[in-house]
């Protein structure tokens, strides 16, 4: 089954012409045909275009062209612009919008030879933790289709986990890559802020958003990161930091590396089975020669509140352009204000409206200092917490999510509960550091994936990947597949 292969397995076979890109692409399309009716990871996909790209890749492969991802089918979250493809952001407001340009990450993946296909489902404008807030219906968890896949990049996680593609791209603003990766049992990484260009990523919260990969193992995550990283002249917030060959760092040797455990993360509400998985991982890391160090991140309790102020404030401005004037499904009005209200009232879902209202409020005259300005100050303190901790440790180990995947509809009535499921992932975005979620075991009855998270220093992806890889290779969790 070619669609089940990892990037490193597949590229070897493709280079040796053991298999063709067309066969691989076809096997992904077959899997979509077979399971996506149950999973609904894809909003849409253009099979003919994908196969055409596969044929072009085969031609290059036959000609002996060497590119790191040549012929690898990669599916894309619906918030990243791909030229001539629909760009809906999981919302109905964009209507039949077709992107006139490619995101920089797409250009980079194309340069690396990847086959870019499909629009993956997501919470509307990446706002949510369950992919239930999509205008295109819910995505289901491949391990248990009565459960959510996590969010907002639920489609990206489910597609990789269900072997509907070899890898995918998602975006992470407060855990939107790592949490669904954990809940679907795959690897998801949020790179350091500025590591990957945001040009062509439809902004939710500009100072927090980052594009990152979903893969079947840690090595693939490293391969994807090398392909999409680097300074981009089109993104003033991307940082000109050299791009190493991340996969070369994966040597299994973690002896002497220091892993931090934050005492503030030992919170109530943590599922005992998740807690047990974390403890097991701690033991495993000690066995591998890493040193465990207790650390403190004193401002952790303010992270969720800070996040929901900063993120919603930025979102309230970022989403203002969806007004029915230049694009979007316009609902006519007698004057511009009525046109805006009707278009936006009709086009946005309830969670997006909630966050726009919240963001507008915290920026309002008279409230700015108390909310937005204070949140920015706390954000600085949170970043300082991490930089202090990284003086003592090389990375921080946490669960990715306090629980395994919950039932569809279980938390939709309680936004606050939903927000709290992001407590381990949110600080990473506020601090601008990197984080990765990888397989840390399963719960029993039902059997659901448990994700572990490593948080790394700014531009500390190599060490973080090395640590995740060493654990992964010393266990067999990542080899298990869901039965759909």
């Amino acid at each position, binding site marked *: 089954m070619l669609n089940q292969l990892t990037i490193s397995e597949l590229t070897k076979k493709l280079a040796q012409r053991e298999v063709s890109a067309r066969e691989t692409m076809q096997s992904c399309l077959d899997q979509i045909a077979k399971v996506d009716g149950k999973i609904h990871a894809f909003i849409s996909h253009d099979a003919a275009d994908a196969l055409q790209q596969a044929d072009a890749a085969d031609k290059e492969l036959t000609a002996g062209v060497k590119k790191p991802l040549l012929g690898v089918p990669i599916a894309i979250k619906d918030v990243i612009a791909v030229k001539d493809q629909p760009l809906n952001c999981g919302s109905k407001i964009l209507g039949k919008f077709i992107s006139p340009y490619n995101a920089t990450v797409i250009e980079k993946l194309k340069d690396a030879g990847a086959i870019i296909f499909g629009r993956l489902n997501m919470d509307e404008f990446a706002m949510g933790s369950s992919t239930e807030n999509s205008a295109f219906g819910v995505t289901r968890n491949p391990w248990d289709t009565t459960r959510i896949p996590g969010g907002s990049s639920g489609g990206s996680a489910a597609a990789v986990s269900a072997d509907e593609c070899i890898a995918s791209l998602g975006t992470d603003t407060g855990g939107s890559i790592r949490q669904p990766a954990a809940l679907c049992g795959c690897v998801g990484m949020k790179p350091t802020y500025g590591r990957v260009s945001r040009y062509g*990523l439809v902004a939710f919260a500009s100072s927090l958003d980052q594009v990152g990969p979903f893969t079947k193992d840690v090595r693939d995550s490293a391969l994807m990161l090398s392909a999409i990283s680097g300074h981009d002249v089109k993104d*003033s*917030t991307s940082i000109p930091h050299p791009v190493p060959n991340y996969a070369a760092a994966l040597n299994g040797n973690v002896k002497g590396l220091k892993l931090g455990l934050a005492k503030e993360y030992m919170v109530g509400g943590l599922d005992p089975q998740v807690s047990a998985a974390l403890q097991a991982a701690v033991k495993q890391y000690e066995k591998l020669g890493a040193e465990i160090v207790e650390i403190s991140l004193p401002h952790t309790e303010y992270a969720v509140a800070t996040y929901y102020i900063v993120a919603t404030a*930025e979102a309230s401005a970022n989403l203002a*352009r969806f007004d029915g004037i230049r*694009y979007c499904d316009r609902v006519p009005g007698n004057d*511009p204000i009525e046109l805006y209200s009707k278009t936006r009232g009709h086009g946005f879902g309830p969670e997006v409206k909630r966050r726009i209202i919240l963001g507008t409020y915290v920026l309002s005259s008279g409230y700015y200092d108390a909310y937005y300005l204070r949140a920015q100050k706390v954000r600085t303190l949170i970043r300082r917490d991490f930089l202090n901790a990284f003086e003592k440790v090389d990375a921080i180990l946490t669960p990715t999510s306090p629980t395994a995947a919950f039932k569809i509809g279980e938390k939709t009535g309680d936004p606050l509960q939903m927000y709290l499921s992001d407590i381990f992932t949110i600080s990473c975005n506020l601090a601008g550091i990197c984080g990765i979620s990888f397989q840390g075991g399963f719960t029993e009855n039902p059997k659901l994936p448990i994700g572990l998270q490593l948080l790394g220093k700014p531009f500390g992806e190599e060490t973080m990947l090395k640590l995740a890889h060493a654990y992964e290779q010393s266990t067999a969790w990542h080899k298990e597949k869901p039965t759909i």
Partner: protein
Amino acid sequence: MEYEAIIGLETHVQLKTKSKIWCGCANEFGAPPNTNVCPVCLGMPGVLPVANEEALRLTILTGLLLNSTIPRYAKFDRKNYFYPDMPKNYQVTQFDKPSTVGGFVEFEFNGGTSRINLTRAHLEEDVGKNFHFDRNSGVDFNRAGVPLLEIISEPEITSSDMAYEYLNALKDILIYGGVSDCDMEKGMVRCDVNVSIRPKGQKELGKKIEIKNMNSFSGVRNALNYEIPRQIEVLTKGGQHHQETRRWDDVGGITETMRSKEMAHDYRYFPEPDLMPFEPTDAWLAEIKTRVVELPLAKKQRFIKDYQLPPADAQAFVWDVPLGSYFESVAKKSKNPKAVANWVINNLRAKLAENGGSLADLKFKPEHLVELIELVDGKKISSAAAQQVFAEMFTSGEAPALIVEKKGLAQVSDTGAIEKFCDEVIAANPKPSADFKAGNAGALNFLKGQVMKLSKGKANPGVVGEILEKKLKS
């Protein structure tokens, strides 16, 4: 009671860059609608701004020209409001950390020099333009993303005429510095006016009323000429003003309420997360300092003082920068800069205009003009002859002395020769001679002219006058 007006101006100026502020689209006026656009300036989903460095340089240059402080830290902010000409429904501008702070504009007013202090100048993006047709409306986004500098004056202007002179002086400075073409017809300069009225002598300001929609400097003056008496009348009738925004109706010649304070926008400014703060380095600032030019008023005053020029001549050189520079290069070598100015303005400029030539390819050297003036001042040639010499020098590039010799234009001051001419003229014109003797002084000029004619213009007219008079009175 006597009232006084207090006026502050917010002037928006389009910067003279090749491309727009966040993208590579041309910054160009007059292209067909929506042809100078791209995903970035259309505010398509997912695009990001990248600051145009020349726009930042021109902003700093403006600050230097306007005597402002250049902060070592500036940033961009988002100003949120919905309007169809706004691609993103927020405008990227500078809120609390602008690129220039303070400064002043000096200009001639009421026979003296006035100085208006500036609050700041900040860089922002221009928006698109709405068009209304019979049955629908359209937006042209060609202008969206053109770099715009907003220059804010302190409320120190006290009359409509002063506002008008301030604006003209500001425009002159910006054109002079190469910051903007300031073409009003093309909408490159737009301004908003804040005006309040208070009893003369009162310290605190009256309620501020903003006027928008003036599309020329005279429009600003007209709006103020309407608005100031209107506000005074309200107060004298015992009424009160409320903070509001009014619109100037250029056709009707009146201002009318646009929105009250209650309807004022809450712009919800916050730092633009897509752009890094702007922290100019010493080297970068030093490079911009090399682009600073002498301001028009300073130059005019210096020309008047250093070269004893009449104000009109000095102004002419301020306006025509290359001509002014040429004048200065000659004047520095000459003992008679005033004469240099006369030659440059009255002769050289006219010659260039009729021949379509430029100062760069003049045939004669600056030294030749100096020499020509010395010949006239030394009474070596008459001014009539000097005209001929100049014309020849302009065409051939030959030295004046050579031309004088070749054409035999040297002035005759030899009294013997002139006496002979005078005798001939008096003999041939008995009636004018008699008239002069009878007290008609004007007749002398006629006789003088005849002598000059006889001498083929070479006789020294001063000497001719003296000799004629002496002979006729004796």
